[in-house]
């Protein structure tokens, strides 16, 4: 009689709710109209977010620790749900124009979301893997869902590179398991701390491979090549989803693995530092030469990845809070910016930067919102982006990676330049006729307003979010116990 797993459903309630929503969307899609399905999905996300509340500070776990509902998981889960909800809101208006108005869209989105939640809750490499793949596979479908050459092509790229990434990741898992003899984070952590020299190279190789695999998922240079093509080729709503939720989830995975299980493993930190520096430089420099705003955002997403990765260097009790705060801010900002693009674009190719000249005089609200988003992305106070970048710098500094911090600082000048180019263009008077789509899009406007208000509020009073996670002790048990 093998022992049965403990089945306390409470810790996995958020995931289950999202999953149920996904199933419902799949089944009801045949009978209900797509909009109502989307509304249903949003409601599900809200429910799931509510179900996070009773779990806070409880530190529950299920399936012998394969699922951990500890505070970091919950915080990240909240960010994920937020991103998903924003995506759905935007899709309410724009999906039809993007020829995406299938119930499958919502279904796939929810499946992907449940996958990301699983990543955030993972206490175990297998669980992590499952979550990751559920996320990625649904992601491939989402990208390809709009039946056009662009989306197909980006879908193929995304798929091929994503699959390669997963393969590398899995191999890394295999090696790690071989070195430590456990797939459970806690087991790995304990094995790592007391490791005989024999397995050391194996472990290092595993860790580095894992890093590369995650590098594909979060688009760390040099594994970022797919990002611009996919983000700019996919329908804007989808690239919104990819660049917020999927990235957040991948970082959640990184945090779980390298902040918890492999914290004391050798080698990966240096590798990560190098990758981060490379990402910062590549992303920012490449973004300077973009002519298409959507593509620019894609590259800036790469650059932001670099800043996010700064927080993973060193000890999680410093990096964790910064990371979660940054992820929240990043989600809000990127979502708002892409929502504006989705609202204004005529074609799924997004907006050409030169076409944005004088946007302020045609769509003042959107222009100001977009400017705020860009300022936040560029890290100008008083917007939340500044606080986030600042925390990232601080973490890097405290963990003795000053040189990376300096590189980040310098590269963010480039970032500032290209963000500001767009922002300034929007405010330059322009006589030419409008090139934007004018239509009624309340939901998008709402999500934009939400995002902008949030990043302003969080910039002036960071503690609204930061205060929840700024407890070192919750970040020291990432591997579970």
């Amino acid at each position: 009689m093998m022992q049965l797993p403990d089945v306390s459903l409470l810790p996995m309630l958020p995931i289950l709710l999202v999953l149920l929503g996904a199933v419902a969307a799949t089944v009801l899609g045949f009978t209900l109209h797509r909009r109502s399905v989307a509304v249903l999905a949003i409601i599900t996300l809200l429910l799931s977010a509510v179900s996070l509340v009773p779990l806070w500070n409880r530190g529950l776990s299920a399936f012998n620790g394969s699922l951990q509902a500890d505070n970091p998981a919950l915080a990240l889960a909240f960010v994920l749900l937020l991103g998903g909800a924003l995506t759905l809101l935007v899709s309410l208006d724009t999906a039809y124009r993007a020829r995406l108005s299938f119930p499958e869209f919502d279904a796939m989105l929810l499946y992907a979301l449940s996958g990301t939640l699983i990543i955030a809750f993972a206490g175990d490499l297998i669980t992590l893997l499952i979550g990751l793949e559920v996320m990625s596979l649904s992601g491939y479908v989402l990208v390809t869902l709009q039946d056009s050459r662009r989306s197909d092509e980006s879908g193929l790229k995304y798929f091929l590179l994503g699959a390669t990434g997963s393969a590398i990741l899995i191999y890394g898992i295999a090696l790690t398991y071989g070195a430590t003899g456990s797939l459970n984070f806690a087991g790995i952590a304990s094995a790592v701390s007391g490791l005989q020299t024999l397995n050391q190279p194996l472990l290092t190789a595993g860790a580095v491979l894992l890093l590369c695999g995650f590098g594909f998922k979060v688009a760390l240079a040099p594994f970022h090549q797919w990002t611009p093509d996919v983000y700019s080729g996919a329908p804007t709503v989808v690239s919104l989803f990819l660049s917020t939720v999927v990235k957040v989830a991948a970082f959640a995975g990184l945090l779980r693995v390298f902040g918890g299980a492999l914290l004391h493993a050798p080698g990966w930190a240096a590798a990560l530092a190098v990758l981060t520096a490379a990402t910062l430089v590549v992303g920012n420099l490449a973004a300077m030469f973009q002519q298409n705003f959507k593509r620019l955002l894609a590259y800036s997403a790469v650059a932001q990845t670099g800043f996010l990765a700064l927080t993973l260097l060193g000890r999680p009790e410093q990096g964790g809070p910064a990371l979660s705060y940054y992820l929240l801010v990043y989600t809000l900002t990127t979502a708002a910016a892409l929502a504006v693009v989705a609202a204004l674009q005529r074609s799924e190719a997004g907006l050409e930067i030169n076409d944005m000249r004088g946007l302020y005089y045609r769509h003042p609200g959107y222009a100001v919102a977009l400017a705020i988003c860009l300022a936040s992305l560029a890290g100008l106070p008083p917007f939340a982006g500044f606080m986030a970048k600042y925390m990232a710098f601080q973490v890097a500094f405290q963990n003795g990676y000053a040189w990376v911090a300096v590189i980040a600082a310098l590269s963010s000048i480039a970032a500032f330049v290209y963000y500001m180019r767009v922002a300034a263009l929007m405010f330059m008077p322009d006589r030419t006729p409008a090139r934007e789509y004018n239509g009624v899009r309340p939901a998008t406007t709402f999500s934009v307003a939400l995002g902008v208000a949030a990043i302003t509020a969080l910039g002036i009073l960071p503690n609204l979010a930061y205060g929840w996670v700024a407890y070192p002790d919750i970040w020291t048990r990432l591997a579970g116990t």
Partner: protein
Amino acid sequence: MPHWLADLLIVVLKGVLVAFGLLTTFAYMTLVERRLLARMQIRLGPNRVGPMGLLQPLADAIKSIFKEDLRITMADQLVYTLAPIVAIACALTAFGGLPAGPPNSFFGANPWVYDLDVGILALLAITSMGVYGIFLGGWASGSKYPLLGGLRSSAQMISYELGMGLSILGLLMLVGSTSFRAITGWQTQHGWLVLFQLLGFVTFFVSSFAETNRTPFDLPEAEQELVAGYLTEYSAIKWALFQMAEYVNMITASAVMSTLFFGGYRGPGFLNALIPGISEWPFIWLFLKIAVFLFIFIWVRATLPRLRYDQLMRFGWKLLFPLALANTLVTAFYLAYLKGFGLWPLGVLGLIGVALLFVASDRVRGLWNTPGKRLQDPTAASRAGGD
């Protein structure tokens, strides 16, 4: 002579023996089939070559060997030649795992070529490899009919593979092992599994018909629609090899069914009352059962008309698959909650199931008989496939 070498030799010997046994069976099965069909259609079968045409198979074999071996211009030569070999190899290999008698009953050796704990899985795997033979054959011919035929038959085979795989799950749950000997042993204790897995047996039976491309599922060779399916471009020995593969598969299927559901190489226990130990006699029982099933195969061929292709697919996906799944779940439920009552509830459940099938047969036929709504654009379909 070192020990391992001796073992090896014995194994090889047995292997060759089984192979030639199967081939002979195949040869004479063709004869038997033709004569039986003739009888059922009130005409004489082949009776010229030898007494009662007993030498007919030999003649066929010689003819097919001495016939010209065509090299079709459009064909991909290597694959074209390899395909029949693959088919026959898989077919022959599959049989080797089946125990033909209790251990050491074969002149002191075990009456099986290889024995795996995962017997059924291995067998299913190997037989399904036969699909490669057919599909490659169809593709390599570089002609349209064979291509379609190959596609059809591979689609059909994989579709029914599901039903087959699922239908034995309940059985595996009961036995708790996938090795043939364990299953046979279980049946000697509790009785033939067909009693407790009626639904399972039915589904398995039907799907094995489809797997072996026999009527009413012999779409691949539907003359009216696509000449001879994947066989169109084949002739001489290669064609013969395909035929062999089909018939050997039939034999294997019969053997599997008898092993899984009809007590395998053991005879019915009650006969021991008449002749003590008769149910322990090796080989006979298995051969007997195989023969019975082969007869059924032929009988069905003579009786039933061929399905339309869409009916075939719908039958597999809409009827067989859910049925097998239901059977599995019922068994699971029984094992979880009704185990205390002994085995008879399972038998009852199985009977009820089949009875229900017959009662609601009109409704059930509606599932697969009549075409439903056709989906609109292929890309949407590919998307659905992606989901």
